[in-house]
């Protein structure tokens, strides 16, 4: 064993004689946990008894789904591991959506659930559910702890697995007797993970080959995903882009890795990406994918994707490479390390012709929207960006508003957008914004939400109000599940089925929940409302009545190639 691997983490202090619940709490502190999101119940009573006198802040959600999305928003916005706690049975099953959400987006999260006493497991005991069975395919890893002796080590392993490599959620299901039981001696808390690999030494031959390909390319494009955010590789990425004058397009989760005020930024690509980004990908002769996984929402018709390009793919997950497309130069490892090494071999270039081609597309096909007396969601989001100096943390639900937020906020830095990219979880916005505010008390945190999405988890506005978390919830009320309505309009002959609804008075609900409620329904009143909302020092729900049948453009229809982007009626 090397000296490096031997170095031990700060220990939890002596644990001899401690109960399992005390071990749990001490291990959490040793992992640096400051905030815990959760909801109590019978199987976790011993843990809650220890939390009663713990310095760890406990944020009580109103629903376990809220707690796990809060932990997720906390993790995405801070880069630290988010932690959620729930009881057995229904408490645990309520975590499922949140775990799957975090799993798809590689978010480091540890969820703890209580389990019935170990000798009752399998007996259909009260509030028993096979939680490790249920969550196995939607977590990076999971554990069932039956003995207090194993608890410390497993907690440590869970945090290690959650935050390293390609991060992800880890669930630890703890039988009550393991929290009630007492340790006789000092437990071994060192991880025992002989097969778990977190580091891949960059293959320098490949790194040089990639740099040479970049030097030789005439029309390169960087295609950047959430992996760059996770790896903290933003500076290395921007340096590469600047030095070699390579335009950068990002996925939904990669937004913010590029400062969108830069001429090299192409903004998002894919189904609702900018025309410029999609054309650039289709015309490029070299595509450098970093921490992205060629998702079908990004590539469109895979057969016609980037048809002229040689492909370099940098990813920490070997299984992501050559999964959806054939890659010419695969590079497995940490994006930051690989980009930094690659940058040493990349020649400065000006690539004037390619730059002009891109500038021309940008000028011809900017993101656009109509204006009239209605509040246009695109304009509202654009104004929010300006009024917050493009510096807020912004959560979203899923739907049209999510795409407009991605297109119009104007992203400047990583960890700014909190959105469910892979799973597309409606209801993610409200609780994830609350979690982010808990981890970033000095930042402006905004939830740009849809009326449908917000309704799914808006009960957590109570949590924001009662914990003095001044999140600004902007609810875009288009009286529809807009994104589904758009598809019914475009592909199902306008037969609107199951998508219309009447919204409640969100402002009144907000007031009832203990937050400030506001409503705005016209373009003239929009700016003032946004300013008043941002100026208020507590949580606000701003109910915005927007034009109901607005559609998201550009759009690459399903099955079409990226070059077949439909610019909508403003083309």
């Amino acid at each position, binding site marked *: 064993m090397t000296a490096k691997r031997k170095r031990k983490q700060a220990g939890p202090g002596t644990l001899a004689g401690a109960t399992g619940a005390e071990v749990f709490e001490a291990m959490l502190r040793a992992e640096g946990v400051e905030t815990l999101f959760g909801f109590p119940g019978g199987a976790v009573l011993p843990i809650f008894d220890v939390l009663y006198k713990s310095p760890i802040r406990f944020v009580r959600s109103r629903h376990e789904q809220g707690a796990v999305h809060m932990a997720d928003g906390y993790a995405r916005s801070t880069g630290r591991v988010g932690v959620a706690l729930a009881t057995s049975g229904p408490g645990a099953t309520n975590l499922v959506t949140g775990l799957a959400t975090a799993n798809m987006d590689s978010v480091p999260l540890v969820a703890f659930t209580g389990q019935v006493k170990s000798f009752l497991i399998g007996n259909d005991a009260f509030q028993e559910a096979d939680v490790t069975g249920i969550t*196995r*395919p939607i977590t990076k*890893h999971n554990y069932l702890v039956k003995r207090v002796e194993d608890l410390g080590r497993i907690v440590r392993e869970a945090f290690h*697995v959650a935050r390293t490599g390609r991060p992800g959620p880890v669930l630890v299901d703890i039988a009550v007797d393991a929290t009630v039981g007492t340790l006789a001696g000092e437990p071994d808390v060192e991880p025992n*993970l002989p*097969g778990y690999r977190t580091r891949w030494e960059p293959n320098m031959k490949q790194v040089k080959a990639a740099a040479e390909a970049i030097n030789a390319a005439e029309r390169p494009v960087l295609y950047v995903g959430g992996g760059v955010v996770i790896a903290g590789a933003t500076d290395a990425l921007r340096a590469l882009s600047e030095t070699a004058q390579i335009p950068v397009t990002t996925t939904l989760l990669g937004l913010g890795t590029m400062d969108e005020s830069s001429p090299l930024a192409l903004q998002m690509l894919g189904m609702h990406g900018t025309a410029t980004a999609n054309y650039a990908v289709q015309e490029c002769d070299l595509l450098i994918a970093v921490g992205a996984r060629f998702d079908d929402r990004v590539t469109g018709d895979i057969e016609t994707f980037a048809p002229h390009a040689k492909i370099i793919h940098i990813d920490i997950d070997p*299984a992501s490479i050559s*999964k959806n497309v054939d890659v010419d130069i695969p590079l497995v490892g940490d994006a930051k390390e690989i980009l930094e090494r690659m940058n040493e071999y990349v020649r400065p270039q000006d690539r004037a012709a390619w730059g002009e081609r891109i500038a021309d597309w940008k000028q011809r096909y900017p993101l656009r929207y109509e204006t009239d007396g209605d509040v246009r969601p695109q304009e509202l989001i654009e104004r929010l960006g300006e009024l917050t100096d493009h510096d807020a943390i912004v959560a979203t639900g899923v739907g049209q508003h999510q795409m407009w937020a991605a297109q119009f906020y104007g992203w400047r830095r990583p960890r700014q957008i909190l959105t469910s990219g892979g799973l597309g979880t409606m209801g993610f916005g409200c609780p994830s914004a609350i979690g982010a505010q808990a981890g970033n008390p000095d930042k402006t945190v905004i939830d740009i939400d849809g009326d449908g999405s917000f309704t799914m988890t808006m009960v957590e506005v109570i949590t924001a109000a009662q914990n003095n978390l001044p999140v600004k919830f902007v609810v875009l009320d288009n009286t529809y599940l807009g994104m589904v309505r758009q598809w019914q309009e475009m592909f199902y002959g306008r037969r609107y089925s199951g998508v219309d609804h009447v919204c409640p008075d969100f402002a009144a609900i907000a007031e009832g929940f203990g937050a400030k409620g506001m409503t705005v329904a016209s373009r003239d009143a929009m700016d003032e409302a946004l300013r008043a909302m941002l100026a208020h020092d507590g949580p606000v729900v701003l109910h915005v009545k927007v034009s109901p049948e607005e559609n998201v453009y550009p759009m690459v229809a399903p099955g079409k190639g990226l070059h077949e982007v439909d610019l909508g009626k403003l083309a």
Partner: protein
Amino acid sequence: MKHIISALVQNQPGVLAHVAGMFAARGFNIDSLVVGRTEDPELSRMTIVVIGDDRVLEQVRKQLGKVVPVVKVRDFAATPCVQRDLMLIRVHTPPPKRPEVVELVNLFRGRVVDVARDSVLIELAGTEEKIEAFIDLVRPYGIRELARTGLIAVPRGG
């Protein structure tokens, strides 16, 4: 193409579920799967026979490598190795037919491990091809019961 994947895994509760669950969730087809102890009490070996093209197999290997308690993954597709499948098969053999069947057993270097009034129970080990050839030969007599372990494999010259 058929691939023999050999995975060393931590000998812990749930590891089989982790591996089998991954195969199911990713839509990979398992032809056979054998789990057994190894020389190291902390480790078990899973020998998994998978059918698929190179792309599928590359994903199988990589996804298997990502399962946390999986310590090491090897694909024996291109490695010369000794392969064994063990079969117990009860064949319908009225006494006049018995010598014919026993002769077949001897030719295949199997053993008769139990004799009943009108059947024999045969033990046979070997490659899957050998086992299948034997099954084809005894099928006309009538197969009463059959159990196979699935393939295990160890590289030659290790």
